[in-house]
């Protein structure tokens, strides 16, 4: 009787998921460590019924349901902490919507659990306290002022003119000067899942920063490769909401990257709706529908990436959102939204404690107290200015002077040389 019951359970489990299942019996018998009777069951099952295909996700879910210990939950995703880097690259009042985009993603990410110490927020301009803002200290994401995404506990790490391509790349690769505080650093390790969100004005293969410089897709791909070389991330989700955003993820080549963009190459990302009171467009379409989607997610939600790919179809967005998952090792259907947008910690129960009832004998040691070195302030103050080495004039100056000399001699002839020398 027992075998039949188990058989039915297994069968319903498999069929309920509706997936194709392939049984690797060898693995099953080793890794499951259950009674051989069960294994026999499975052998029977596969011989009689047509071979079915198990994908690893079903397998691990099965495992974690059977084995109740906490190690089972480590299988589903390999990360222990979450980071977010949210960048708005445009300034000026009429780019209000880009700041609103970034702040709405910031709000969702904080709501789902990532603390400020793990978020690097870069806003290129200040809209809330802009002189032209009729409602100061607010940034709205929806007309009729329904949702103030600025809130009262925003922590902006890079503001105004600090948002440059150089600083962005320094944050990503970790090559910051030693005096940079912790809040401005991306201190991720090899078990961090990072969410990177970029918004602004972009084109085919580049993204414009501060209306004066641009970052190309090659530079971004190289920065991610350097992050991978130093194992600064476990998995990375890259979302970009600009015109022709899909061109920015074309050149990625490092593993474990998933990318989403709001529009394909050749298409423009459009803004959502203007607000007549404030006078500008409040949000971009893609991020508006993304925010709507994220508002339904709570920390214990099981929504996965396939739902995220469906956000803002062409009917709503006018542009065609795109995504790229070929570099990602796991199946997107098994990746939870909270793996990137939230910060669900893994916990283990502490089963042991050390018995400290017999105190240690007092060791006669002199403790040397010392203050931690923070910055070598005296060195910095008394630093002499660095002597710049003299370089001979570079090509531009040489060419310019050659040009001038040529023109002179052409006009006046060589015979005037003796008047000069």
């Amino acid at each position, binding site marked *: 009787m027992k075998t039949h019951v188990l058989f039915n359970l297994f069968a319903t489990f498999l069929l309920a998921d509706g997936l194709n299942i392939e049984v690797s019996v060898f693995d099953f018998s080793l890794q499951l460590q259950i009674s051989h009777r069960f294994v026999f069951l499975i052998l029977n099952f596969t011989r009689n019924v047509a071979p079915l295909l198990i994908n690893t996700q079903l397998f691990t879910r099965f495992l974690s349901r059977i084995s109740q210990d906490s190690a089972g939950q*480590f299988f589903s995703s390999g990360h222990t902490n979450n980071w977010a880097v949210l960048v708005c690259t445009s300034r000026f009042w009429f780019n209000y919507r880009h700041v609103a985009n970034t702040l709405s993603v910031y709000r969702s990410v904080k709501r789902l659990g990532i603390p400020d110490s793990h978020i690097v927020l870069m806003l290129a301009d200040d809209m809330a306290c802009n002189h032209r803002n009729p409602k100061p200290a607010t940034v709205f994401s929806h007309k009729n002022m329904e949702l103030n995404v600025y809130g009262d506990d925003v922590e902006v790490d890079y503001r105004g003119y600090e948002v440059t391509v150089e600083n962005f790349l320094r944050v990503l690769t970790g090559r910051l000067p030693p005096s940079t505080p912790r809040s401005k650093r991306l201190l991720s390790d090899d078990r961090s899942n990072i969410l990177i969100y970029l918004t602004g004005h972009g084109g085919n293969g580049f993204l414009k920063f501060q209306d004066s410089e641009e970052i190309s897709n090659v530079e971004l791909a190289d920065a991610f490769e350097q992050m991978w070389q*130093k194992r600064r991330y476990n998995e990375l989700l890259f979302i970009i909401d600009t015109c022709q955003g899909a061109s920015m993820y074309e050149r990625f080549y490092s593993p474990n990257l998933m990318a989403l963009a709001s529009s394909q190459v050749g298409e423009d990302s459009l803004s959502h709706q203007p607000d007549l009171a404030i006078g500008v467009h409040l949000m971009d379409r893609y991020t508006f529908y993304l925010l709507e989607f994220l508002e339904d997610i709570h920390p214990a939600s099981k929504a996965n990436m396939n739902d995220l790919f469906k956000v803002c179809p062409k009917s709503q967005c006018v542009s065609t959102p795109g995504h790229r998952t070929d570099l990602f090792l796991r199946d997107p259907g098994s990746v939870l939204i909270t793996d990137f947008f939230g910060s669900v910690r893994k*916990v283990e129960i502490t089963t042991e404690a*050390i018995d*400290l009832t017999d105190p240690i004998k007092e060791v006669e*040691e002199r403790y040397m107290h010392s203050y931690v070195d923070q910055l070598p302030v005296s060195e910095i103050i008394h630093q002499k200015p660095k002597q710049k080495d003299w370089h001979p004039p570079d090509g531009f100056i040489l*060419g310019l002077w050659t040009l001038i000399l040529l023109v002179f001699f052409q006009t006046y002839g060589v015979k005037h040389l003796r008047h000069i020398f």
Partner: protein
Amino acid sequence: MFLSERRRGQLAALSIAAVVIIVGVPLWWRTTETYRAWLPVSQIKELAKLQLQLSADVEVVFARGTVTPEQQKKVPLTQTQEEERAIDGDLIILFLILLIRNTKLESKFFSCHVLFLPEDTALRYSTQADLYLLAFQDVNVYIGQRRTALLRIGPQMRVGKTLEQLLAHLEPRIKQVLQVMSFSHNDITAALSDRVRFSPDNKESIADSMRAFKSSPGYEITFSLLNPDPKSHRLHWDIEGAVQTYIQPLLTKLSPVANFSIDSQTLYYTMLGVNPRFDTSRSAYTLNADSLAHVINPVEARLGSNAASSNPVLNFLLYVPDAQHSPLYIQGRKKQEVPSNAFHSPRWGGIMVYNVNGFYGSEPEFPVDINIDMAKVMGVFLAQLRLLLGVQSSTPPPGFLVARCGSTGLADWELDRLMWSRSVENVATATTTITSLAQLLDQIGNIVINDNIAQQVSSAVTSLQLAVAELEAGNLGFALQYSKEAILASEKAFFDPSLLHLLYFPDDQKFAIYIPLFLPMCVPILLSLLKIVSEARQRRREKQAKKD
């Protein structure tokens, strides 16, 4: 002599072309090239295929009754055993086990002692030598607090057997003991997780590798007392004394591995963020294991950190539940009781719930003064600290009994084990960093390599070579020190702010920059040269025509 106008023009054009080509082009080339200091590329390439040799010294002492006096004379002085494993193709590790005959039991630094006992050993408890001799029938190996292990001879090995059979019986068992006390294949593979994407054998090793912090030169430890209800409880905790008495000995013992800095804080009005349920069967509030995952985030936002360095932070929180929700117990996944009433999160820290309703007395007058029992609290935190630092090893094989670690919280052989895995991890990380830096600098020709970076790279390479040599010789302390120096130098070189690759110029942009500068200069020169050449050719043709 007066040259003709035409001749002068030709000479001028030729001399300008000569100046441009001979002087101008090399000058332009030298002034626009980037300064790149010399890097020891060949040595870095050698390091890339890492060949590590780890050797552990073992002293085997044969107790009376295991070997006959004749056999005793014939026991070889040293015997080595090697084992080669390839990990991911380019890495080979050799295990060497040296067996030495000795009769004294000195605790040589970093070597293990195995005391081989006869089957029917008389059992005595001895405090001086910190050896416990136990009565259990199914325990064949006992591992002590320092570096000693006791091995009981198996029942099939009576004294009458030959020496070769004895040694053949001995070797695999000693290897098993060493795998617990020093390093095993799994430990080393886990330490190399930076270099190799390993598919582990079991879930426990994945969980182990995810739980412990990665090797870092320093750690910050923060103890926080969370008091959500100051109106009911006035809490006193002697954290400085407790840290000095209980935690500091462990950290002093771990000082070769890393530096630690400790601070503490008290937070008021910080709730857990999860509503506990009232369990009538235990007449107490309970938090079940699934809701524990959501406890940490709201608290973390308030914790703050005053760390001025980029070292990883370990947070230990002591939560005293408010009077309405006392007592509060944590339940395991299967609703079982948790005696320590604490849980921890990998790579973050631990939280312990401390119930104080037992201290109320008969007629409590709020706020109640409560002195927290730091011994109990620190016992739990110490256990969590061991787990988070990677000290805890996997469960020992059957038939093994491991002594409880002393009040420092760390046995000597556990420290050795940690040092082995840290050295290997440091060496692996440093080699990966250096090789990827060399590759990066090679690929991008535009990056400026300053002298200080070259010096850091050279010193990292030297330290790495020394560390590998020391690992081979079995000097664990020096190996760890060199590996730490290697890591510091390599990280400093890799993360130097001047190495930012902002000099990405696609080729069409390079053309766009240089053409407006050099084309107006070159066009007259080229045209005049062409004119000279065409005139010379014409003259030659005329001469040819004249000749004919």
